[in-house]
């Protein structure tokens, strides 16, 4: 506990330090990153110990506000999430220094190190807070510091838009959470977050659950609250994207799990809602991984897909708890927590590698990349590892956790009521489809970015990145391998947190053995690969090996423009699934026998986003256009408003006095 507190204090100091060193910009970045990395490393050891140890601790600090308290607590559930935070934080602190120094020639970057440490500290406080008011402070700190970082390159229009979407959605979520904690506080008489399951009055409990779902669901990026995620995550600096996708989304999952601990008798309906929204997010996210032609946007949709998988598993766990089926509950919650861990590892890896690509090739558009493997071999290998983990290739992190998720769904299929069984079967089908599409999308992302020949001059001139960026990515590769091949360790890490939900280790032993088996076979798979590769080399050694051009039906002068494009690659799948997308074509159509040159472009966006949010906001702002008459920049008018307001206030005060 104390080490974790020191780590948070260290991060807070790390947030102040770059501001003190304001005059020496580069030094500020390095100093901020160093303090951040050391604090995260210290925090990580303490979080791992607390997660596997199972003991809970609390600490009450001095606090001068009339409401709330500086009440911090570290229990295994918080510790599991802190493990994600500190591990990804460690990697992104180091990576961030390398990433930001590249901008140092053009603009001030010192403050970003401060904002990053503030973000890390406030996320840590979110996980540690045991008081509603403190939680909201930390939550707002997280929102604001993330907003500042997302808006780093604010001279670009898409960056400003993305940051704004993020802020609006975050505040919708925060509004729900304000209501949530106020309601909880008024029901139990204190803002302290209860340590044990508490019975709320029958009118309060459902409202709490709805607010938790909306507030935390928004932070998690769960459909239909996901529209901000693909707008904000791609435009942030890449180590921030890594932190947002790898850790900040998990704050939503943490909030939902905390709610499950605090509110006694959560009904199965809440679980089913999570289950359904999760399945929808998984499929919608997976479709858009293929539809997006911006590398980081594609990865952001992959986060939506994975958050969906987490929500499905969590939903199954809640249903299991509500239906008194501890086996289903155990596997559902275990799957959710494991996927939180592995998604943190592989998604922060992918975003970091995408950042290296962005720095190397100066573009996020897949259609302008290509051939980067030859120019950035280390980044390519690292990205491949992340993509394979996200595509759930056995032996890597994504598979190990999805195995437990599937295992839980199969269990639910066997044990729930008939309606529950049908829902589990449907979810299995949905996750299978999402898995297939996600694998397709990630294969496309890798293939278009790294394979073939460069599609643009920038890609042709791409360079490998510095060690400060490669080293933290290598650490995350290690995490992906460890989580994939030794799932037993990850399960032991989350077991004490599961015990808080009344899930005994004995319920998990079968799945530990099975996941271990799957992990072993993953290693065997790797060994067979190596053996066959050796066989292939042996076969080829005495034979002639020649070089030639790629087969093009005999055409021997191919150009890079003749390669298959990312949009074409996605087209057959998107044709089948076009119901979920809004495809826009712009530009002219070639006409006449000898057509003039035309430019034609297609773009596909997520229909929920396009219709519900962009369409919806446009509709609302059209409807409210008449209100614009209220502010016509005339001083007299504003004076009148002030006068009316004053009269109203005075009359209200007069009434209060009379009473």
């Amino acid at each position: 506990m104390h080490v974790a507190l020191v780590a948070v204090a260290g991060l807070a100091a790390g947030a102040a330090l770059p501001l003190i060193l304001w005059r020496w910009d580069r030094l500020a970045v390095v100093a901020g990153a160093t303090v951040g990395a050391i604090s995260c490393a210290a925090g990580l050891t303490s979080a791992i110990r607390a997660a596997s140890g199972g003991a809970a601790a609390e600490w009450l600090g001095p606090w001068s506000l009339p409401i709330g308290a500086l009440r911090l607590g570290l229990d295994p559930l918080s510790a599991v999430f802190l493990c994600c935070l500190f591990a990804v934080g460690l990697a992104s602190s180091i990576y961030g220094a390398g990433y930001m120094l590249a901008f140092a020639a053009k603009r001030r970057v010192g403050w970003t190190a401060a904002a990053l440490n503030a973000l890390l500290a406030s996320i840590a406080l979110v996980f540690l807070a045991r008081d509603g008011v403190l939680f909201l402070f930390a939550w707002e700190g997280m929102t604001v510091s993330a907003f500042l970082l997302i808006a780093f390159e604010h001279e670009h229009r898409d960056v400003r838009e993305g940051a704004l979407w993020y802020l609006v959605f975050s505040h919708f979520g925060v509004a729900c959470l304000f209501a949530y904690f106020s309601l909880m506080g008024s029901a139990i008489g204190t803002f302290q977050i209860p340590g044990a399951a508490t019975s709320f009055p029958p009118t309060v409990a459902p409202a709490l659950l709805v607010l938790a779902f909306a507030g935390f669901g928004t932070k998690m990026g769960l459909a239909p609250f996901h529209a901000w995620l693909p707008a904000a995550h791609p435009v942030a600096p890449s180590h921030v994207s890594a932190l947002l996708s790898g850790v900040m989304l998990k704050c939503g999952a943490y909030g939902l799990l905390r709610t499950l601990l605090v509110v006694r008798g959560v009904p199965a309906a809440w679980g089913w809602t999570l289950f359904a929204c999760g399945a929808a997010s998984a499929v919608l996210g997976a479709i858009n991984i293929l539809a997006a032609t911006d590398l980081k946007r594609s990865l952001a949709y992959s986060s939506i897909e994975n958050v969906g998988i987490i929500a499905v598993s969590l939903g199954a766990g809640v249903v299991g708890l509500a239906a008194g089926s501890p086996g289903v509950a155990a596997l559902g919650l275990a799957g959710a927590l494991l996927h939180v861990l592995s998604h943190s590892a592989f998604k922060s890896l992918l975003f970091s590698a995408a950042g290296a690509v962005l720095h190397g090739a100066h573009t996020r558009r897949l259609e302008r990349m290509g051939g980067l493997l030859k120019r950035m071999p280390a980044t390519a290998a690292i990205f491949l590892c992340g993509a394979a983990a996200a595509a759930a290739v056995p032996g890597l992190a994504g598979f190990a956790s999805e195995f437990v998720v599937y295992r839980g769904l199969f269990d639910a299929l066997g044990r729930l009521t008939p309606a529950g069984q049908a829902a589990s079967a449907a979810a299995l089908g949905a996750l299978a489809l999402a898995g297939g599409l996600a694998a397709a999308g990630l294969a496309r992302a890798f293939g278009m970015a790294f394979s073939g020949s460069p599609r643009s001059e920038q890609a042709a001139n791409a360079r490998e990145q510095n060690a400060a960026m490669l080293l933290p990515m290598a650490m995350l590769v290690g995490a992906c391998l460890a989580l994939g091949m030794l799932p037993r360790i990850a399960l032991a890490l989350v077991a004490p947190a599961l015990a808080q939900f009344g899930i005994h280790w004995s319920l998990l032993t079968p799945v530990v053995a099975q996941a271990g088996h799957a992990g072993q076979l993953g290693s065997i798979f790797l060994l067979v690969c190596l053996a066959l590769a050796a066989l292939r080399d042996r076969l080829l050694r005495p034979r002639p090996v020649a070089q030639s051009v790629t087969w093009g039906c005999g055409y021997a002068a191919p150009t890079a423009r003749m390669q298959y494009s990312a949009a074409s690659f996605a087209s057959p799948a998107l044709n089948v699934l076009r119901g979920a997308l809004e495809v826009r074509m712009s530009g002219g159509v070639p006409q006449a026998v000898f057509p003039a040159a035309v430019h034609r472009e297609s773009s596909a966006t997520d229909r929920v986003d396009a219709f519900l949010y962009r369409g919806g906001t446009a509709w609302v702002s059209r409807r409210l256009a008449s209100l614009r008459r209220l502010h016509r920049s005339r001083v007299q008018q504003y004076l009148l408003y002030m006068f009316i307001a004053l009269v109203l206030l005075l009359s209200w005060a007069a009434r209060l006095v009379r009473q």
Partner: protein
Amino acid sequence: MRAALHLAILLLLPPLLPGIVNRVKAAFAGRRGPPVLQLYFDLWKLVRKGAVYSTATTWIFRAGPVVTVAALLVAGLLLPFGGGLPGPAAFAGDVVLFAYLLGAGRFATVLAALDTGSSFEGMGASREVTFAALAEPALFLSIAGLALARGTLSWTTMLSGQMPAWHSFGPAFAMLIGALFLVALAENSRIPFDDPNTHLELTMVHEVMVLDHSGPDFAFILYGASIKLFLLGAIVVRLALPFAASIPAHVALFLAGMIVFAVIVGVVESTFARLRMNRIPQILVAAGVFAALAMAVILIRVNG
């Protein structure tokens, strides 16, 4: 001993299947056709050849065939070949690993195809991933149906001694066989999904992804394709032949079943035309619907 026999079947017999399919097709066309062992000859020829690599390719291209074959071999360790030959690496939950190993193999093939930068191979890869993604729900729903009916999550127990299960779930199992047969044809790029014999790059799916591979790499690819056909065929055969017997009899029965499977694939290839590209998703959705219906029937039976 059993593991050795299992491994021998897995390593040695798969290249036989395409030979049988081709003989059946030849018979329908009134030709004699190539020898049944033709694929073995081809493999032997290819491993003794050198290779030509495109200048655009990298180690990804060279790793593709190796990883694909490795994934399929490990997947083969999970399947039972007959009542006395359980999967040597079987465990509860191996159905999920099996599906994802197939996926890993495909991932490697697709990356190798994209590595050439050829638009033909990109086209094939794009079709492959589309059809595979659409076949995935059918596969998982079939697995879910079997899991629910048999109360197990391992192929070995799911596909053995299911005579009594056939009595209670007969119609559902028949539909599952249909769904799994369609999945097997789609995953292996056979007619009506893809024609392995076409020689027009624009119309192919699997074959066009491997245009640039040569020598031992191409041998790995052909070998891998035959293993994939064998494995998915083995599931259909084991489900369709619900008998329990001693080892020699059962293995003989299983192998006879595999031959019948190859003959049926050959008959389908000879009597059906290959579908238009945009009709294929409909058939895959139909396979999913079969599996879902089977699931519904099993749910009703299980609950009462």
